[in-house]
């Protein structure tokens, strides 16, 4: 998926000279390699290593975006968006609305996030809920290389600010990427595996955990449909509802904590759209409400996985 994102950046930077990348250590492509080699093709004017100044990195991106450039910001770790929170939620998110539509703010925030490899408390957090809760931002979250490339391209072309949550555990996931440049629209969910018994709505790494769960459950004759919303704002409510109306059962799987999260909201969306179609309560898979611990057994315990999805699906079938 890292290569697909790199390809998307290259394609968009070739297409539009206004596009530039900014972040910490992105010239060498640290920490995850996504921006690697871009400087060779586009030069240091368009691939900017910034000082450790998250507020200035994100804030300056807005300043550039409203005056003609198209920045793609690398947050390094999504955890550090806390150091630029005002810039994201008060400045960037509100610039079009508050100013009555006078200013475009075509800006992309790449948010490497997620649990894994004992990242520990400050390097593992799933913070997408805060931004879904912030009107004025579009939020997407790819699970495959093809989606990652397509969504990042769409994000860069979008005249509004878009956050792309890239699970850092997926950078090495491989998968087919189409030859042609195929942007994936925002607001279009994708059925990653069809099935008739239970709908599992999952994002990012949990899509893979859910597919694994689906394979295991298939052996028991349970056909799970895995639906990946791909973008959270806007959300393809129709696609989710369509699936649940057929299966009558829903599991929602995310990696963030339980409370006031994206999954809680999706559960409500399903309830609102499909209450009469549900044959069982929606079951959620999420991390318990604790910070992410360092030690592997602890980290393993809090990380939602295929087992959790299997258990959740079974619960909806009880």
């Amino acid at each position, binding site marked *: 998926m890292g290569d697909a994102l790199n390809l998307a950046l290259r394609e968009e930077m070739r297409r539009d000279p206004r596009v530039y990348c900014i972040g910490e250590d992105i010239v060498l492509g640290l920490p995850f390699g996504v921006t690697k080699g871009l400087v060779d093709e586009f030069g240091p004017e368009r691939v900017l290593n910034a000082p450790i100044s998250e507020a*200035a990195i994100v804030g300056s991106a807005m300043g550039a975006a409203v005056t003609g450039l198209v920045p793609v910001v690398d947050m390094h770790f999504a955890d550090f968006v806390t150091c630029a929170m005002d810039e994201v939620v008060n400045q960037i998110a509100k610039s079009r609305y508050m100013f009555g539509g006078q200013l475009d703010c075509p800006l992309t925030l790449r948010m490497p996030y997620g649990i894994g490899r004992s990242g520990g408390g400050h390097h593992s957090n799933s913070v997408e809920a805060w931004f879904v809760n912030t009107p004025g931002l579009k939020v997407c979250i790819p699970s495959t290389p093809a989606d990652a490339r397509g969504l990042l391209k769409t994000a860069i072309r979008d005249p509004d600010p878009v956050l792309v949550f890239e699970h850092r555990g997926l950078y090495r996931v491989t998968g087919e990427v189409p030859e042609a440049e195929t942007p994936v629209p925002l607001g279009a969910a994708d059925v990653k595996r069809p099935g008739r018994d239970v709908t599992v709505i999952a994002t990012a790494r949990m899509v893979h955990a859910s597919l694994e769960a689906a394979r295991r459950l298939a052996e028991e004759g349970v056909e799970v449909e895995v639906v990946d919303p791909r973008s959270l704002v806007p959300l393809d409510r129709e696609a989710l509802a369509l699936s649940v109306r057929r299966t009558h059962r829903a599991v929602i799987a995310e990696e963030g904590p339980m409370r006031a999260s994206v999954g809680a909201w999706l559960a409500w969306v399903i309830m609102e759209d499909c209450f009469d179609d549900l044959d069982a309560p929606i079951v959620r898979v999420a991390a318990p409400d604790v910070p992410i611990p360092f030690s592997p057994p602890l980290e393993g315990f809090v990380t939602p996985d295929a087992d959790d999805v299997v258990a959740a699906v079974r619960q909806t079938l009880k």
Partner: protein
Amino acid sequence: MAPGPDLLLQMYAGMLRVRLFEERVRELFANGRLPGFLHTSIGQEACAVGACAALRADDYVLSTHRGHGHLIAKGGALRGLMAELYGKANGVCHGKGGSMHLADASVNYLGANGVLAAGCVLAPGVGLSIKRRGSAQVVVTFFGDGAANRGPFHEGVNLAAVWTLPVVFFCENNRWASSTASSLSAAGGSIAARAAGYGIPGETVDGNDVLAVWEATTRAVLRARRGEGPSLIEARTIRWVGHFEGDAQAYRTKAEVEEGRRTDPLARLGRLLEARQLLDAAHAGRIRAGVVAEIDDAVAHAETSPLPAPQDALADLFASYPWSR
């Protein structure tokens, strides 16, 4: 470097326009015509007007919660501004922004800001796009003495300095952040002195002397246009009125306000113009009448304009619709 007669008169009219506009909105606010919170810049006009007089029309300004003066000095139309303060549909932001959260893109005024010092980090990005275009524009970001204690000041100045960006950091030091004295909150006692730590010019000017402000800003702007990077200006001034409308000002003495009135930047420039025989009472009267007429017009326009339709609250969120989901 000295401004010619035309520019002097222009600055005089500019300060008068800000002064009378602010006095009028105070009155309107007191009469319950304007919703929300209101911060006016009465007494501080030389900062906005002196700084903006050093700018080209295509230069950018980033402003603050106390931003009417900056917009007026940058050439913003009073009608759009006044209608916005009224919350009318034809306000410059369709009533969505209001006093603290408005912008006027038509004059490259990129926004007042409800968050102190936020402009300090937006500015380097504006500088970056200018640099990429090679357009020799500059961006001035205004902020208060209180705001200078926030992190974005540091990050923004450092970034602009290290990347040699065409930014002017303009601190209006009016001695107070709301009820908190600058002397008790800004260590070292000087905002301008902080510039040295970043290897950029820092200068303190009498912010009640519009010529001094214009000169300092002109130096900084020329430097920026030459591609030599940012500067920091600290203009010492006095706000005559409360921090916000309704502020009882228990924290400061009457003497300070009197000092402000004694050093009135508008009267000062008026005296200078008279001494140079560029202005007499009749001329001054005509200028004032013109400004009053402009303001009357803006008020009449705002008063008679419609409020937005409630459901317009859903418009302007994104460039493309529908995004209700």
